[in-house]
């Protein structure tokens, strides 16, 4: 009888230990899941929203007569921002090429390849649509499951240089 009671106590002890271990694992798994969710959300937000903020800031800083245009360079969707420096015309290109957002600053008449620019960040796709009737640029950035879009009003209208 005493032997059986000892065995019972041991089993209870083992059961409590088992519950204890299971609880630790559950809390750890919960924490890991929350951390994963938050980091994924932040990463998606970082890439698409940072790209949008970056492009928007560039557009607003170039919003003067003949300053902004949209089109394509080498088949890639691009925004062109013009700047006059000591009677020379320069262009800042922001474009999507081979799964990333790129930037290139060069003379307006310079020849270049899309790969000559500087890669800003990886993005699944980026598109620019300039609505000439309302001087509005629609920017759409896609990153995996997350698509972010922004409308930017260009007060000066579209540049006619391109």
């Amino acid at each position, binding site marked *: 009888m005493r032997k059986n009671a000892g065995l019972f106590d041991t089993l209870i002890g083992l059961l409590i230990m088992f519950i204890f271990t299971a*609880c630790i694992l559950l809390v750890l798994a919960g924490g890991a899941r929350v951390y994963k969710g938050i980091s994924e959300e932040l990463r998606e937000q970082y890439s698409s929203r940072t790209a949008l903020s970056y492009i928007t800031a560039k557009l607003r800083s170039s919003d003067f007569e003949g300053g902004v245009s949209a089109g394509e360079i080498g088949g890639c969707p691009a925004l062109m921002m013009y700047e006059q420096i000591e009677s020379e015309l320069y262009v800042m290109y922001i474009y999507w090429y081979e799964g990333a957002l790129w930037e290139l600053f060069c003379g307006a008449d310079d020849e270049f390849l899309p790969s000559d620019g500087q890669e800003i960040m990886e993005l699944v796709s980026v598109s620019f649509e300039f609505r000439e009737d309302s001087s509005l640029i629609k920017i759409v950035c896609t990153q995996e499951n997350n698509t972010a879009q922004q*409308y930017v009003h260009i007060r000066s209208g579209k540049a006619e240089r391109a």
Partner: protein
Amino acid sequence: MKGKSRTPLFLIETVVMLLLFSAFAAICLRLFAAARQTSRKSSELSHAVSWAQSAADCWKSADADVSLAAAILGISADAESFSLYFDKDWRQTAGAGEFTLILREDGDNGAQIVVFKADPSEPIFTLRAKAVANG
């Protein structure tokens, strides 16, 4: 005395550990939930700001004309306001969704933009836009 089992002592220790662990686990779970809530709110605010700015820019580009701005966004408007609806992933939807943006003209070439989830009196973000005549 010498032959007394140590099992009851072990059991008491384990139960005390389990109780302590339960208390700490409850605190941890509350913190996890709070972290998730904060992250979700931050994401909502980020999207709300972006869409409010977009709506303001559309309205400005339409020379402060609500109907024209709504047409640009592909929606209909009434005399002084338009509403945009979004699903939980902030994709624009045709009917009522998880989130709502309302742009309402408030006179003096201004417009009030409110983005909310369920209750307009508890907005996620509000923005006041003012149209300035070009030239």
